[in-house]
């Protein structure tokens, strides 16, 4: 298994197997996660390895799944719950916002809520309505939560293990579009990656490209295209969007003086706005051009025939880079 090429989805599956084998407090619950192995097969094989008491097919009720996980976590279990699509995640919100994120604080640490909520996110797989959302900003706004979005098999593996270890609730959002794309070598060695940290995927000196989730793929392609023009772009995968590793972002933009933020979620109150505001507070005088955002417009994800218009493309990113690079 060492260094076999695996997809992001397989990396998730490997991390879940690893976490359950290492720690008997870890339980997996959700709709169809047991016998069926999850609608994307992220939990495939867990039921056979760890049994029905730890890999639990729940009744079809998202609010219930979240509420149940709060009770389990308060009892010292490490529930990893799956919500099948981000479009169905809203029913969990009351339990995440009013309970999971606050139980530790409400009780001065007497009780806590170490749960991980996994959900696919994003558009681009020609899915039905309500299967293509990117609403990570809603969760990032909630004190007490962590919000993690991996964008490669290795980061999915290392960050999911770290999320399950974490003593506080983590919303772990998996870009559906990347699930089966670009298999990469991965060693199933149980190594955790740090939460609360950005990943600099590519170093550069002329401008900083900041992204997360599926858009990281287009952002890296845009950096390749810029390199062909002799422009050196630094690419940062934010990966943990709450809390934000602003120090890494600041250092990069201070160095390059130019910044483009790319995300698939709608623009208004998106995490890109938060990053831009924080950068303006910190590096205003080092900026050579206004920060640009390349995002979805403020619309619901269109049904799939026109969904490509919704997601930032390589050309859209290059267009914004052009503006930032040539700002007079």
């Amino acid at each position: 298994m060492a260094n076999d090429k695996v997809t992001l989805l397989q990396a998730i599956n490997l991390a879940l197997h690893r976490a359950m084998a290492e720690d008997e407090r870890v339980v997996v619950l959700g709709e169809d996660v047991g016998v069926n192995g999850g609608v994307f097969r992220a939990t495939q094989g867990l039921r056979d390895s760890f049994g029905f008491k730890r890999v639990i097919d729940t009744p079809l009720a998202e609010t219930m799944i979240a509420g149940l996980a709060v009770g389990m976590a308060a009892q010292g279990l490490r529930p990893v719950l799956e919500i099948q699509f981000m479009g169905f995640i809203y029913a969990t919100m009351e339990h995440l916002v009013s309970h999971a994120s606050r139980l530790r604080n409400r009780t001065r640490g007497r009780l806590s809520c170490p749960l991980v909520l996994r959900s696919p996110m994003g558009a681009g797989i020609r899915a039905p309505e309500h299967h293509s959302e990117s609403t990570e900003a809603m969760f990032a706004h909630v004190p007490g939560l962590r919000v993690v979005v991996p964008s490669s098999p290795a980061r999915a593996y290392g960050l999911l293990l770290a999320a399950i270890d974490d003593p506080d609730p983590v919303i772990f959002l998996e870009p559906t579009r990347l699930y089966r794309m670009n298999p990469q070598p991965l060693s199933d060695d149980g190594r955790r990656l740090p939460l609360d940290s950005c990943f600099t995927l590519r170093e550069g000196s002329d401008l900083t490209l900041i992204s997360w989730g599926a858009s990281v793929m287009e952002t890296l392609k845009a950096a390749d295209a810029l390199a062909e023009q002799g422009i050196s772009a630094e690419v940062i995968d934010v990966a943990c969007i709450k809390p934000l590793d602003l120090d890494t972002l600041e250092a990069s933009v201070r160095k390059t003086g130019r910044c483009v933020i790319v995300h698939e979620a709608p623009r208004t109150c998106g995490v890109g706005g938060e990053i831009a505001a924080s950068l303006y507070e910190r590096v205003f005088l080092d900026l050579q051009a206004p920060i640009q955002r390349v995002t979805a417009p403020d619309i619901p994800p269109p049904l799939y025939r026109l969904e490509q218009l919704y997601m930032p493309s390589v050309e859209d990113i290059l267009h914004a880079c052009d503006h930032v690079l040539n700002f007079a």
Partner: protein
Amino acid sequence: MTAKKIELPYTRYLSPDGRLIGAMPDSADDFNLLTRLYRQMVLTRLFDQKAVALQRTGRIGTYAPTLGQEAIGVAIGFLMQPDDVLVPYYRDTAVQLVRGVRMEEILLYWGGDERGSDFAEPGVAEDFPICVPIATQALHACGVASAFKIRGEHRVVVTTCGDGATSKGDFLEALNVAGAWQLPVVFVVNNNQWAISVPRRIQCGAPTLAQKAVGAGFHGEQVDGNDMLAVYERMQVALERARQGKGPVLLECLSYRLGDHTTADDATRYRPAEEVKHAWQEEPIKRLQSFLASQGVWDEGREQALIAECQALVGQAVDNFEGAGLQSPESIVDHVYARWPKALAEQREEILERAIRHAGGSGHGQ
């Protein structure tokens, strides 16, 4: 086609004036137990009255009185085992006190201090703090019960709510999963007839709330929630059933909210004085007192001694509460995460600077 009529048991042993009706439950001749239950009800009421008085004089914030609900909470508290878990709502002062939550902790909580939910007694270390968002606690209870079941522990979860909460999806989803998985949960519905200003009759079209359990595949029943003998017996049976792995129980306790919803509410705006006057004729403490007196185990002398004893306890708790001092400014930050994230370090510094600025009074802006 008509739906099959659902008939559920309803239990009452004591008439409103404290006379035994029909068959006597086993507990009815254990006067030692009944006296202890009675004493705890009186203590609860005196504490509750003090809490309302503290709110009226600005010494604590909004408080949800438990007036009239003492039999339900005291019975639950007496019957739960220490390692069972209580997942309460906000009108559960009675049961919390029996479980071991301290009076000063309850005052701290309603007095605006999170330490009130950091229970000191080991017997309540796993109990949830009171739940404010309606009915959400019912699902947490199912999660706790699932943990017991996964680990093979013979412990029981008791969760409570009012009649209004039974309208909420969370309550129904909790019943559903508890039935599907046969979880060791006892759902106690304190049907006190009023969800703030909305009366029971327009809350739900079903003739009983207990029958919601039937739709989830488990046992539900009604009990006179103002009759300590009845609540105690039915609660004992329910807990035993859950502990033996025979599945959940829904116990609907018919009661009456003699007080306002909270100290911020004025129930005279929406319910007739006649109704409240009538409800006072059925209240639980007087009922048990009359029964005990009729059996020759209670009298005015014992009553006066008990009140003095309880008032001393309450007075001591108020002193402890008022002597507790403020938490530090850091405390509002430092319990949000297990470790405050380095990525948010700046915000913590800002709060500490804000505290210094505020302590400087009018100094800021100069």
